[in-house]
């Protein structure tokens, strides 16, 4: 006997949804029979707007594509311009870029930690982790002037050098974070109920993961070692010592543990960067930003963000403005085709944790 099917609209106004999107669920009893994602609530037509602005005017736009973690976007656009132009970046700028990227990865993981455990009803965790995340935002504010949107990395380097004493403050914050990690372990990752709610839930098939286009922590949670930072090292990642953690299982817990271990790696990377950072200028001489003709050509660049591989395909027709910038966010695949697939058969209670663990970020899907 089949149970009666009902339709459940999860969103767009719903506390369990990550951002502003809608998942239309067909449920029989407590089990999801069919899931359909509806996106477009955050469509701002960034790719169109970039065609209206010069390359440099596009930087304030791209960082708004992914709100929790804007730096990989800036990095991507900067590297795309540099690749088309063949522009050199000073060594110091590369170190500063890696520092900013790792700091923002850490901030994104703190926010994810809050979302993941808050969705499971552990309301103390978001209070702690989002509060701790603010220490990183303070660093960013000092470095770039903005808490959320930095517009710091640009073609040819970074906007300005580190302030005085910034290195010490970063190290101090890293020490603090390292001292907090065991407490988060106690509260979240070793919590018996957390394990009960996450192990064996939202499993991604390891065999199919590559074909489905899974990237980032969800892929590493399937036990597959794939990370842009080692596969195609950009900036100075080939000079840093770090490992890419993988966990077997493919469930929410495996993805959580991947992120948890990457936080340690990020902290150690930031320390290495600060240790090895050379002196020198932070940007080379660049043309007037409003008169910056980028030669004809195209480039596909990618960066490892907190949710996976962020790819930009940029085309220049030799004029002031981009011909086309195509943004390929990790959530584009995770949030639509993958989510629709792995939600089938899940319990309604697990929909929100699964979305959180995949890092579904709607602004990336619709731009």
């Amino acid at each position, binding site marked *: 006997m089949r149970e009666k099917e009902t339709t459940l609209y999860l969103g767009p106004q719903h506390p369990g949804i990550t951002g502003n999107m809608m998942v239309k669920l067909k449920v029989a009893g407590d089990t999801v029979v069919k899931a359909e994602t509806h996106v477009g609530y955050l469509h701002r037509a960034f790719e169109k707007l970039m065609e209206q602005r010069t390359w440099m005017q596009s930087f304030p736009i791209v960082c708004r594509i992914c709100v929790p973690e804007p730096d990989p976007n800036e990095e991507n656009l900067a590297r795309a311009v540099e690749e088309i132009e063949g522009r050199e970046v000073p060594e110091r700028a590369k170190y500063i870029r890696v520092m900013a990227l790792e700091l923002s990865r850490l901030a994104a993981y703190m926010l994810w930690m809050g979302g993941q455990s808050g969705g499971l009803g552990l309301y103390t965790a978001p209070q702690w982790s989002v509060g701790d995340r603010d220490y990183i935002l303070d660093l960013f504010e000092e470095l770039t002037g903005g808490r959320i949107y930095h517009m710091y990395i640009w073609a040819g380097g970074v906007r300005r050098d580190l302030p005085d004493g910034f290195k010490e403050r970063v190290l101090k914050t890293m020490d603090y974070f390292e001292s907090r990690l065991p407490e988060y372990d106690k509260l979240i990752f070793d919590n018996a109920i957390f394990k009960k709610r996450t192990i064996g839930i939202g499993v991604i098939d390891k065999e199919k993961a590559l074909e489905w286009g899974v990237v980032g922590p969800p892929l590493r949670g399937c036990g597959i070692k794939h990370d842009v930072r080692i596969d195609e090292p950009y900036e100075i990642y080939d000079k840093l010592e770090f490992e890419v953690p993988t966990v077997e299982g493919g469930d929410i817990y495996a993805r959580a543990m991947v992120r948890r271990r990457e936080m340690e790696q990020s902290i150690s990377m930031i320390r290495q960067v600060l240790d090895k950072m050379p002196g020198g200028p932070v940007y080379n001489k660049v043309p007037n930003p*409003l008169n910056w003709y980028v030669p004809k050509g195209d480039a596909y660049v990618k960066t490892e963000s907190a949710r996976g591989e962020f790819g930009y395909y940029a085309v220049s027709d030799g004029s002031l403005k981009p011909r086309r910038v195509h943004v390929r966010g990790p959530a*584009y695949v995770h949030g639509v085709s993958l989510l629709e697939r792995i939600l089938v058969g899940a319990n309604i209670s697990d929909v929100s944790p699964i979305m959180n663990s995949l890092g579904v970020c709607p602004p990336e899907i619709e731009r």
Partner: protein
Amino acid sequence: MEELKIEKEIAEEISKTFHSAEVTVKREKRVVVKLRDDLITPFLSYAKNNMNFIHLAHISCVDWLEDNKFELIYSLLNYDNKVMILAKTYIDRENPEFVSHTNYWDQAETYEREMREMYGINFKGNKRLTEFILEDWQGIPPMRRDFDTVKFSQDTFYNRPGRENAQDVRTTVTKKSGEEIPEIGKDYTVRNL
């Protein structure tokens, strides 16, 4: 030259199998293949099944209004040697139609839905070419070059006039510092260039 060994092998294999393909090794881990539009499907199938390019990173579209063509770009990644292939082709802009690749990759469906909506390309074989991002859109697909977003925005939405005593930030700053604004920098929007 030693570093690009794998890339050259891949390029060679492609040009051996697809004689008409124009293969270039762009840089480390990037191979660009230009193909006739009817060769895209066999190429994707070959790359996926025989050359282990199992990851479809993205499908992108560029509007070349001057040439009256759409350029489609399929990006594939090989997980073993991490090489990326960009397969490019041109299709007609007047009556844009192409083959769907949803049976090769699940996620192709999403890209094709978006391109249908944003460029108006009809992908034959995709069963779910429904509304994706926009809702009740009337008029030409917005990502086409001939769609004027500024005009549309001004016609449709209310534009609040600025303050009358508003001062131009750049003039104020340059007046203080005594610099001169370069001719090119006088127009903020650079739309008229």
